């Protein structure tokens, strides 16, 4: 509560950048881009500063800012940072500037593009740091506005439809979320996540909701669940995803998959689980099947995609479903084994971060292919790219193997921990989930074989430039991080170990 309001600075620096761009209508494009990138990178700088001073032995919130705001509604301006939010802030600090940097050559109205992008980034940061439902929900909804316009105005041929579908579907989910929290507020008079979490752990929250009427505890739980299920998305609420990810411009796809899909998983971990532990436990069995549906059908649907962006989009569904599989497996047994639960939850957080890196790198690679091929991005539109552009092929190959979970790169550790945990909690789920690992190998290697191997063909038959400029810097940096966190996962787990230990300590014991 004392000290400089560094968390507010993290959230509002991108917004300040956006405001600056809004106020200077006639700035040169280069200046616009420089300002935007600097404002975007501020997140990374501040997050690293936070990571430096972060107390790695503590599970609770740090750098807390709490001020009375709307006293009649008992609303506080309340921000706090724990291991989970720090990991996601770091991820945002990496992926958002990367997405902005690869949009460097975005010629059409770079000012508006950057402005919207920064607003989306700030909203996501707000979601990861706000601890009071009131402004948390503001950020949650606010994030939709800039992404809607980013998809609609700078997207591909079907962008308009995809953008409407994305926003309306998500808004509808959020409507249930809002209704749920209205009921919670009516029952408890509080919107403070920490306070509500304490009520949830003791079972008092559902008791108070039940006092409103018999079906309210279930209805509120399902409403909040619906909001997050659409956002992640949980299978089968995912039908908006392939179109939105595929039609968005490259930088925005990177942001959508890297950061925004994590908002939903974050909601599950930060809000749904603490507030409704008993209801989540009761629903865990069917939910685990849905998560497995995402894991298996996501991967196998990707094997049937001809559009490379839709393929990576389905692969994202597969990868974020692992996170949900881990959570649902942890809450499903009456008394889970502590080492397994620790592994599953640690793996889920690690997977959120790792998927952010590898999926955004893959979207970047597809973007590069698309730009070289004049907008085509079909599986059959290329051939022998590895002969034409060896550096690009090498970096893209590493990103692909990271996504595939090859040991030595970042993806493996998270997936291993998730499977290790899930096996100890629900062995059959781990066995079924293995099908997802197989499907991932199938479509990624087919992609690699068709696009990069064989004789040069299609768009790669003629002149095909190798990687250079911002794309090279960004992809190179992402690949370097894949090696770093693949070899030294402790850099990340060290941040949230006490938090996970505390979570596991709070689970019912057999």
């Amino acid at each position, binding site marked *: 509560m004392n000290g400089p309001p560094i968390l507010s600075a993290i959230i509002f620096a991108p917004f300040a950048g956006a405001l600056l761009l809004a106020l200077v209508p006639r700035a040169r494009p280069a200046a616009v881009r420089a300002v935007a990138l600097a404002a975007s990178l501020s997140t990374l700088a501040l997050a690293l500063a936070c990571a430096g001073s972060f107390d790695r032995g503590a599970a609770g919130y740090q750098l807390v800012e709490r001020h009375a705001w709307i006293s009649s509604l008992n609303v506080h301006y309340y921000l706090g940072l724990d291991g989970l939010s720090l990991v996601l802030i770091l991820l945002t600090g990496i992926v958002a500037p990367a997405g902005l940097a690869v949009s460097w050559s975005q010629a059409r109205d770079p000012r508006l593009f950057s402005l919207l992008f920064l607003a989306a980034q700030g909203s996501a940061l707000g979601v990861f740091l706000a601890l009071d439902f009131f402004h948390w929900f503001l950020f949650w909804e606010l994030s939709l506005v800039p992404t809607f316009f980013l998809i609609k105005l700078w997207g591909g041929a079907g962008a308009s439809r995809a953008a409407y579908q994305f926003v*309306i579907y998500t808004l509808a989910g959020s*409507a249930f979320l809002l209704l749920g929290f209205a009921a919670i507020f009516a029952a408890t008079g509080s919107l403070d996540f920490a306070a509500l979490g304490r009520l949830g752990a003791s079972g008092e929250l559902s008791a108070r909701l039940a006092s409103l009427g018999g079906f309210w505890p279930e209805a509120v739980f399902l*409403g909040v669940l619906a909001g997050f299920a659409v956002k992640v998305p949980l299978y089968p609420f995912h039908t908006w995803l392939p179109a939105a990810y595929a039609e968005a411009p490259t930088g925005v796809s990177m942001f959508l998959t890297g950061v925004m899909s994590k908002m939903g998983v974050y909601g599950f971990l930060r809000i749904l689980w603490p507030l409704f532990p008993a209801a989540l436990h009761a629903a865990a069995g069917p939910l685990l099947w849905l998560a497995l549906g995402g894991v298996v059908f996501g991967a196998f649907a990707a094997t*049937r995609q001809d559009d490379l962006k839709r393929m990576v989009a389905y692969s994202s569904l597969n990868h974020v479903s692992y996170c949900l599989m881990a959570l649902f497996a942890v809450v499903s047994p009456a008394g889970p084994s502590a080492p397994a639960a620790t592994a599953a939850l640690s793996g889920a957080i690690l997977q959120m971060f790792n998927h952010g890196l590898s999926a955004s790198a893959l979207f970047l690679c597809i973007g590069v292919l698309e730009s070289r091929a004049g907008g085509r991005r079909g599986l059959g539109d290329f051939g022998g790219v590895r002969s034409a552009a060896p550096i690009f092929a090498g970096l893209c190959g590493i990103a692909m193997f990271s996504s595939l979970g090859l*040991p030595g790169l970042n993806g*493996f550790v998270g997936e291993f921990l998730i499977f290790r945990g899930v096996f100890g909690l629900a*062995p059959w789920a781990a066995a079924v989930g293995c099908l997802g*690992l197989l499907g991932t190998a199938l479509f990624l290697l087919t992609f690699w074989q068709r696009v990069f191997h*064989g004789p040069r063909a299609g768009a790669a038959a003629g002149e095909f430039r190798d990687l250079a400029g911002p794309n090279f810097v960004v992809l190179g940096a992402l690949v370097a991080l894949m090696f770093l966190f693949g070899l030294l996962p402790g850099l990340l787990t060290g941040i949230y170990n006490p938090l996970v230990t505390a979570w596991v300590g709070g689970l019912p014991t057999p």
Partner: protein
Amino acid sequence: MPPLVSHLWLIPALPLMAAALGALTPRSGRAFAAGTALLALAGSLVLSIAALSVALRSPGQHLYANFSWFELGAGTVRLGWLLDPLTAFLAVMVCFVGLLIFIFSLGYMREDANFARFFCFLSLFAAAMLGVLVANSLLLLFICWELVGLASYLLIGFWFHKPEAAAAAKKAFITTRIGDLGFLLGMLWLYDASGTLLFFDGGRGCLEAGALQGLAGATVGGLAVSTVIGLLIFCGAVGKSGQFPLHVWLPDAMEGPTPVSALIHAATMVAAGVFLIARVYPLVGADQALAAVPLHALTVVAFIGAITALLGAVIAVAQHDLKRVLAFSTISQLGYMMLALGVGSWTAAIFHLLTHAFFKALLFLGAGSVIASAHHEQDIRRLGGLGSRMRVTFATFAIGMMALSGVPFVFSGFWSKEAILHAASEWDVSRLPLLAGLGAVVLTAFYMTRLLCEVFLGRPRSEPAAHAHENPLVMTVPLCLLAAGAIGLGFLGTPAGPWLQSALSGSPVEPHSILDKGGLLGLSILLVALGLGSGWALYGRRPRSEAEAPDPLERAYPRLFGFLAARLKIDEFYAATFGRLARGLGALAVGLDQSVWGGGVGLVAGLGELAGRVNRRSDEGGLNAGFNAASERLRGVGAAYGRRQTGEAHGYLRTLAVAFLVLALIAILGGGR
């Protein structure tokens, strides 16, 4: 603990550094890339020999050094390095054979534009393979195991512009990954049941008595837990070591450059599965003491090995591609090793692994020498007459062929195969593995004779074969050194002087006269003679005169020969079953999205649109009928816009409501349990 043990990581780290340097070397840095690769592997060889001497001085001990990888929750994930004779012998073999193959590659790959990259990948392979050997943790072993798979993928697809090579690389990766998923599940189970993946950890490791007792004591579905875990881990070995039913990738892997076939797909990587089972032998064999269980893990290993040994030999008889004959013979020989593991003699398996590494690397490099000088002609029907043109290659290839066939007394393959057959004859569960092993003996001698006669005898049957000539020293010297090993290595483990077996097991193995079980010995010698003789009768006496002439066996049994040449149609069977299954699953996933989930969204959106239209009609016809014409146009535009947008919004909201209800039902039903 000797200081070397805590520095064992250097053995894989040296080639890994060479690989990293090689990856950053531009194409023109050929000498640099090859030089660092050779130097690094030579360094690893020196360290491995030092490690072997340390291991031999402390028989029966497992020297290890464990360390923490990362903190997890309140605990740590630990890995470690392990030194025992098993590790040390294999490390020396991998480094030595690898070094010879690296040297051979200097000549074989000299005209390839990606020469530098080739040595980078070779070094990556060596690093990963050595990592598998020195790991003291199943997790670390698995990590290196997967990296070995990556190196194999990269090297099979080294000539990636060839569609066949690209397809073969993918097939190898996917097929082995299927096995590896079993391995992964076994590892997860072991981790969950024993709480650690370290092999040895001062009594707390998963291969030590405490953990094994618990694993063999617990049961699941009537089987001991250790049996199930052992069989799941064995799945990984089946994939990597080309065992039936996952052997299909190995023949295709011959699309890689021949030194790769020699190093990875014959001498070392494919033997990693045998090593894996030997490493976790206490676990896989933990159920042996139990009498009441319906199945022992090792029984499955023995039968899979026996089937593979016979299957590979049968198919090899009808192959026309020089490298594919050798590939199927590799499959068959790996089957022998698995058979030995299964019948309880892991030392015999490792003995055969070591001798096989030498003579199979020799045979593949000999094949490479032929291919290089015959302008990449690999069809044995179009070769011929090379014996007089390539004398060193011919002589060394003949030594390798006799070692593989098990020609008695002089050649190493004879002794190691004899050890396996001896062990199989003492297995009291079933006679079938022994019979399969004996059957494969005669077939092996037969198809190797066929191969030798077709390639080296008679007249050249094509332009390239007619102009073939011996290769430079950089390629022939490795052949000679490997040939020396193919002869000499057998004397390390003869029945009368089982030094290797004693060194491996850490306790002296009782020598016995070779006449003990003389009947078996005589029978197998007879079978070798039968194979050699019938091979000579069919292919050697009157060598093939023209490339188009049918094979003598093909003439006699055209349908059978065709079936064998088509590898028993197993690939086709998989494509028709599992391939179709995978495609069907993909089609199901897409179909669900389009018809059920997406269709539901569309349907509800349509209903919403209809409701919007009805609403508009009632508004326009009833409430708004009195509006004047001036606003008519504006209203029309607005209505058109509204029809589109509000219809969609209602649609989505309604879908959500339906999904919400479905979810509510699920949760309520689920909650009721």
